[in-house]
């Protein structure tokens, strides 16, 4: 007795919608700072804003206690370079990221992250997150500092990535936000940013949203707004029946923040960048199978006969011992670590990895499939740390992997954990469970583009700030989201203290209300949201896939508009849940349009952005070595040019630390 099918057949009747239904009922919320997106970044933004004494409201798509990509946990925290054991400085780390990306990442955002990452983690510790081995379980291990009891990942010499027991981190930041009086509105689908005079490009003064349980309409009025949403995970690929269980972003990922930002006139960069969609979901439950990557870094991989796969260092030189897998090699100051939102690494910062010619050696018969993880070859401390500490606290591992596998009888002291069986090229990356080789090549994922922000993490729009990882140019993953959220919240609050009273434009609100409820007024046999979403993904794959030209992009834009004005216009929502998903389809289309319009502007191919123009095949011509910030004004695309190192040019100082001191607000 669990499923709808069981209930219907047992009772012979359809269960009625369980929540009070009141489409269009208007609720108004007034706050100094509105945070859109209540994931880890949004909670940190709300907390840091509320601590300055301002009134804060959070608008969240799910329920903020456990929602968001970071809501499922975290096991290691990147860029904590100011921790007392670190051998890396904020400047070293920022330049390593910036140089690895040849300048195609927001250096100022990276610097802010590394400057405050450790402080943000200490904040989390005060909220109740365990960040030290307080029970001395790993005393004496070479990844542990016995004085501070901190434990480190990847690079045991440089000690800037901290292992944390973060399975409950979201619950802890949520409880802190509640404790200090943040007002959280759950189940809200944001539909539009409100701007002064209803004008695109005007000061941002709040947002509208629909409650996806009751159908009620919400008007949020705020002096400052922080967008902390994720990316549009359903843009290129829509097959949740197959992919949802393998994905690291949940189905709510519709790029709603980017969509409302674009519509309001906010500026974006590098949205044309994309890469192969390793995490699109055509793979296995995250961390559910043998691999040697991030959480599992250092895990011995053996073949079907028990022969161990060798490791190489960042320069592709053989590594002999297990200990060396966790040490920088000759010519390396430090290793950056994996999962920080950059797509390429210079050799001097690259991680130690499984032998890069493993696919060829499998083809030759040197290693026999299937491969296994053999934890028994590790020291007890390392084995327990990977299986028990890392697996057990990383996102989607406490219940989904550790508890499930332990109950099923898996014992890391005795058992070999099987890796996926794929074509040999599937083993070219040590993250086997995400098996990029199984993802159709036309499915792309974002390449690090997002909102363009200044040293305050403010957009070009007055009153609009950005936190989070996936939608911020220069952002990263879990820890980076906490840190940018915390910084953006603080700056939004500072602005809100002197900002004028937000007076929304009633015409803008009425127009939005009419648009938002369109799907409830259509014929009951209209299209459903899944049908629409699948069509959006088809258009993106076909017309804006790995290869593009002016014709395909223009045709793609035409078809997105066709879809919007035909099948989506007449789509029907039978309840607020479906209405929310259909509104997400609008967001997803908007993000698709933003990407295609951006792609049209870059008339050159670019190797760092993974950007391939068939009509401009020359790759990385020097003339195009520049950012192309894009925004809308009067619904027309406006593009300008910006040097990659704009964050160190006037009006900013030429030095990272000087800018941080001037703008950091600490």
């Amino acid at each position, binding site marked *: 007795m669990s*499923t709808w099918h069981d209930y219907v057949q047992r009772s012979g009747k359809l269960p009625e919608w369980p929540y009070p239904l009141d489409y269009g009922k208007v609720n108004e919320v007034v706050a100094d700072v509105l945070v859109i997106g209540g994931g880890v970044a949004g909670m940190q933004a709300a907390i840091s804003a509320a601590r300055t004494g301002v009134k804060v409201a959070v608008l969240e798509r799910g329920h903020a206690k456990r929602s968001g990509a970071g809501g499922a946990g975290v096991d290691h925290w990147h860029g904590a370079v100011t921790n007392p054991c670190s051998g890396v400085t904020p400047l070293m780390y920022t330049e390593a990221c910036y140089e690895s990306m040849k300048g195609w990442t927001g250096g100022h955002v990276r610097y802010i992250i590394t400057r405050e990452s450790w402080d943000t983690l200490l904040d989390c510790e005060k909220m109740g997150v365990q960040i030290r081995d307080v029970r001395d379980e790993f005393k004496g291990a070479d990844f542990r500092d016995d004085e501070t009891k901190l434990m480190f990942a990847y690079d045991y010499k440089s000690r800037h990535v901290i292992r944390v027991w973060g399975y409950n981190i979201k619950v802890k930041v949520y409880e802190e936000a509640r404790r200090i009086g943040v007002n959280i509105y759950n189940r809200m689908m944001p539909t539009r940013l409100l701007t002064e005079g209803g004008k695109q490009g005007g000061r941002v003064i709040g947002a509208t949203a629909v409650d996806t349980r009751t159908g009620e309409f919400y008007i949020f009025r705020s002096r400052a707004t922080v967008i902390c949403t994720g990316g549009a995970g359903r843009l290129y690929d829509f097959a949740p029946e197959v992919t949802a269980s*393998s994905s690291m972003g949940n189905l709510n990922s519709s790029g709603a923040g980017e969509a409302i930002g674009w519509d309001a006139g906010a500026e974006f960069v590098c949205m044309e960048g994309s890469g192969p969609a390793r995490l699109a979901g055509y793979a296995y439950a995250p961390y559910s199978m043998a691999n040697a990557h991030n959480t599992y870094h250092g895990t011995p991989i053996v073949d079907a006969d028990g022969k161990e796969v060798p490791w190489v260092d960042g320069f592709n030189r053989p590594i002999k011992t297990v200990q060396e897998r966790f040490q920088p090699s000759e010519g390396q100051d430090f290793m950056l670590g994996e999962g920080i939102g950059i797509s390429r690494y210079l050799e001097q910062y690259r991680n130690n990895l499984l032998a890069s010619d493993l696919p060829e050696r499998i083809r030759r018969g040197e290693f026999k499939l299937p491969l296994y993880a053999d934890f028994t070859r590790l020291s007890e401390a390392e084995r327990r740390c990977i299986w028990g500490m890392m697996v057990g606290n990383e996102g*989607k591992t406490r219940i989904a992997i550790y508890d499930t596998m*332990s109950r099923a009888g898996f014992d890391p002291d005795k058992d070999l954990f*099987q890796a996926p069986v794929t074509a040999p090229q599937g083993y070219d990356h040590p993250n086997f469970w995400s098996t990029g080789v199984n993802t159709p090549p036309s499915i792309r994922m974002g390449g690090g583009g997002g909102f363009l922000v200044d040293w305050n993490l403010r957009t070009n729009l007055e009153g609009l700030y950005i936190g989070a990882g996936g939608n911020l140019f220069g952002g990263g993953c879990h820890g980076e989201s906490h840190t940018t959220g915390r910084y953006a919240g603080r700056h939004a609050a500072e602005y809100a203290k002197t900002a004028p009273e937000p007076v929304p434009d009633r015409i803008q609100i009425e127009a939005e209300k009419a648009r938002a409820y369109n799907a409830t007024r259509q014929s009951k046999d209209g299209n459903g949201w899944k049908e629409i979403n699948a069509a959006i993904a088809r258009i993106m794959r076909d017309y804006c896939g790995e290869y593009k030209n002016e014709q395909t992009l223009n045709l793609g834009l035409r078809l997105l508009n066709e879809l919007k004005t035909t099948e989506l216009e007449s789509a029907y929502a039978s309840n607020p849940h479906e209405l929310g998903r259909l509104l997400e389809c609008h967001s997803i289309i908007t993000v698709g349009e933003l990407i295609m319009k951006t792609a049209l502007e870059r008339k050159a191919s670019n190797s760092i952005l993974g950007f391939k123009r068939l009509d401009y095949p020359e790759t990385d011509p020097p003339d195009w070595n520049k950012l192309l910030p894009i925004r809308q004004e009067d619904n027309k695309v406006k593009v300008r040019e910006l040097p990659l190192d704009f964050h160190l040019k006037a009006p900013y100082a030429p030095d990272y630390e000087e800018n941080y001191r001037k703008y950091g607000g600490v």
Partner: protein
Amino acid sequence: MSEKAYMIPNPPTPNKAVEFNPDICIGCNLCVDVCPTDVMMPNPEKKQPPIVVYPEECWYCGGCVEECPRPGAITMLHPTQQRISMNWKRKDTGELFRLGMKNPPPPDTRPPSG
């Protein structure tokens, strides 16, 4: 004599995502409250387990299980395509195991670190 049959859409894929034990579940709906994607809805009958309405929207974070005040009332079920993939082999005997097998080995009772 056959049981009554209904015109009913195909069972969704995955079928369940989570499963309730009605003997333990008290129908408090705390899992419903926190599910990020609204996979479940409250049962129209009070104190009965929630109904899994949108299993294909589950991303298997396990938050519902962590939230549950009654251990064993709710179990997260990986889709069969994942269960069939989670395999292991006992190193010294060569025995093969998989998640969801009929006669599983005894559980490993060691709790996670921390």
